[in-house]
């Protein structure tokens, strides 16, 4: 009998393979009755005589599919590789009603289906202020000058030819828009993690430390305590960055992203990398750095990217992203296939350094377990966490909570709003909650 069960076990495919396409759709829509029926049928099959079951095996195994019985495609059939034809679902998408002009809008990264920490360049979130441009690298120039002649000995111009001759660094960093999760400050507004958290991405960037270029120009660091970064697109977007960050060697002028050149939507051929700081400061299509002795109060630090507090004051020059995390799978807008084992997986990040710990709760924050962090854990980069969960079919609320190396603990909505109210728009790093109901459907809720 034991032997029989063992053989039956070998024949038994994963639960989803019991389902027809229609049944899978039914799972997605929340009707799960037939699932139990499928399992009953499967159990009946196991109890049937062995001979009958052999003919009943999985046709995907019993008959070899076309890809196993034919010649495959030659090399370089697709000189620039593209994802499988079966991977059409995970795309960057806009959130309806967020902006009325495509050139000043956002597209969100499909975090719900991504693995690890590196964002495929084609799925990197987008935020443009006046449309994206495809800059001709042979005509692109990078200038360093001063707000005052006394701050710099040699204002200079560099070409890409020259910048790419210089010593380079390659580092993995997250980039997050200051307004990521911004629509959720006051209440739940969007259904999935793509739209709640999809303005964060993470890449390996390659480029030249800005400090080297400023040294090359003879910058007077005693007087020049700020830099202004400016883009070459129509918006010529500008942001003020502290010289302390440049001096630390962290800030660099990047041309590479994930092993190739930057994508146009990400600033081809040159962008600033300002680790830990919100994306608006990572100026794309970077054409100029001005060193100065005062901050600049540019449009994106005096009209936008200012955080409204309950007393009516706006916080200006808020730049750092404090520790934040989110469970990406399972997450809002998804349906669990059945009871049983799941790997809760998500991402955590901090603008103040490395992630030290991520805790996961499945009961809305009454009890927490510490998740496993995937290493190596890197400075100001996404960190992937995983935790085991056996779903018993009852309602649950999934949460994650990040702690960074400074000891800062990601707050709940209640804790965050108690200090900052709910009109800030920017820097929402509250704990995200996903509610699971008996049907398996998961939705976005906020736990105070």
């Amino acid at each position: 009998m034991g032997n029989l069960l063992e053989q039956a076990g070998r024949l038994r495919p994963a639960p989803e393979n019991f389902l027809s396409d229609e049944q899978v759709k039914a799972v997605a829509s929340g009707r799960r009755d037939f699932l139990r029926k499928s399992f009953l049928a499967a159990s009946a099959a196991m109890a049937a005589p062995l001979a009958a079951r052999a003919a009943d095996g999985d046709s995907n195994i019993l008959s070899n599919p076309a890809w196993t019985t034919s010649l495959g495609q030659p090399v370089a059939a697709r000189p620039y590789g593209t994802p499988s034809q079966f991977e059409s679902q995970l795309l960057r998408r806009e959130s309806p009603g967020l902006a009325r002009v495509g050139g000043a809008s956002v597209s969100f990264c499909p975090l719900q289906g991504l693995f690890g920490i590196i964002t495929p360049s084609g799925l990197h979130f987008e935020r443009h202020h006046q449309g994206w441009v495809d800059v001709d690298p042979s005509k692109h120039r990078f200038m360093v000058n001063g707000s005052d002649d006394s701050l710099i000995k040699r204002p200079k111009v560099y070409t890409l030819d020259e910048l790419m001759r210089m010593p380079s660094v390659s580092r993995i960093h997250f980039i997050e828009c200051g307004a990521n999760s911004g629509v959720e400050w006051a209440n739940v507004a969007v259904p999935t993690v793509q739209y709640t958290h999809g303005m964060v991405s993470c890449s390996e960037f390659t480029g030249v430390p800005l400090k080297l270029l400023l040294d090359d120009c003879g910058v007077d660091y005693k007087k020049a305590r700020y830099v202004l970064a400016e883009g070459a697109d129509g918006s010529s977007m500008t942001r003020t960055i502290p010289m302390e960050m440049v001096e630390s060697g962290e800030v660099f002028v990047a041309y590479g992203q994930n092993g190739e050149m930057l994508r146009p939507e990400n600033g081809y051929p040159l962008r600033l990398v300002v680790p830990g700081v919100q994306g608006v400061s990572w100026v794309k299509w970077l054409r100029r750095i001005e060193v100065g002795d005062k901050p600049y109060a540019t449009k994106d630090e005096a009209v936008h990217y200012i955080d409204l507090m309950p007393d009516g004051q706006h916080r200006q020059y808020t730049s750092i992203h404090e520790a934040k995390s989110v469970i990406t799978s399972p997450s809002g807008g998804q349906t669990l296939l059945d009871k049983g084992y799941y790997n809760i997986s998500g991402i955590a990040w901090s603008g103040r350094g490395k992630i030290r710990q991520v805790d996961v709760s499945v009961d809305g924050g009454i009890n927490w377990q510490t998740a496993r962090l995937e290493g190596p854990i890197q400075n100001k980069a996404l960190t992937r966490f995983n935790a085991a969960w056996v779903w018993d079919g009852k309602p649950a609320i999934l949460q994650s909570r990040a702690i960074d190396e400074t000891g800062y603990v990601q707050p709940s909505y209640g804790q965050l709003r108690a200090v900052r109210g709910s009109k800030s728009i920017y820097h929402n790093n509250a704990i995200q909650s996903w509610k699971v109901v008996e049907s398996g459907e998961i939705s976005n809720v906020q736990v105070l």
Partner: protein
Amino acid sequence: MSRFSRFILSLAFAGAATSAVAFENFKGIGRPATPAEIKAWDIDVRPDFKGLPKGSGSVSQGEVIFEEKCASCHGTFGESNEVFTPLVGGTTKDDIKTGHVRALATGDLPQRTTFTKVATISTIFDYIQRAMPWTAPKSLKPDEIYGILAYLLNLSEIVPSDFVLSDKNIADIQKMMPNRNGMTTNHGMWPGAPASKGGIGNGGKPDVQAKACMKNCKTEVRIGSILPDYARNAHGNLEDQNRNFGPVRGVKTGESLAAAPKNSAELELATISGCMACHGINNKIVGPGYNEVQLRYKDQTDAEDRLSRKVREGGQGAWGSIPMPANEHVKEADAKTLVRWILSGAK
């Protein structure tokens, strides 16, 4: 140790706050920027008005330019919420006295406008100069910018209708900006030196102090907000936004993408050519909707030639005063394809 290896070593330590990258000279790399080059690009204007160009413009001059180049997006009175958030409104005479827009604290503000937020008048000058008008950034002369700004100040009831704004009196107007005292830098989110050392902010001290409790942290789970029904279905069919294999499926919240009609090749062409930023198929954005264009030109025999030239060369006047910029990046054949598509009822 050679200078180069010392440099590499110091690069290896870059990231540590103490790193001082040893470096002498990257021979053969970069060249001096000429004064004319710096002048061409260094257009930023600071709150202390460093970088402000000389010039002047009156409210009435500004009104004319605004009507011609700005109103189609911002509304004649800078009040429009159609394309962008409003520029003016929400400020009071009392705010001009106190420098605090009171409605920000009381919450009596349906929507924040530019003038309810901005503390520094230099910011508006700088932004108009570098980025406006929307389709032709950096095309305005300093006098025009002064005029537009004077008009906006008049709409905000900061200056009278006979006012002339100039580089000479802009500092006086700064003292009347309704939200000039509305900014604080007392926070922990500036990554540089703190205010106590001549920088900004409190040196990185977080304002929200949560604790990491692990067991029996509370007696009840308080739900503050749930996903409204309309929002569940507002982002298309979520089933199509998840893989159809793996641990989960997307919830079916609408029609499947596969069943939805694919964009026409012409619409794709119009999108990648940048046309759809200003034109809708059935609605005006900055320029007219394609339905309007078709209605006006469909019976004119030379329309195809004229309009495809206009796509590439730009024009002004046919649809009001906002100009259609030149689009030389659109190939001649593509321009014709697009125009034929528009005239046959773009879809």
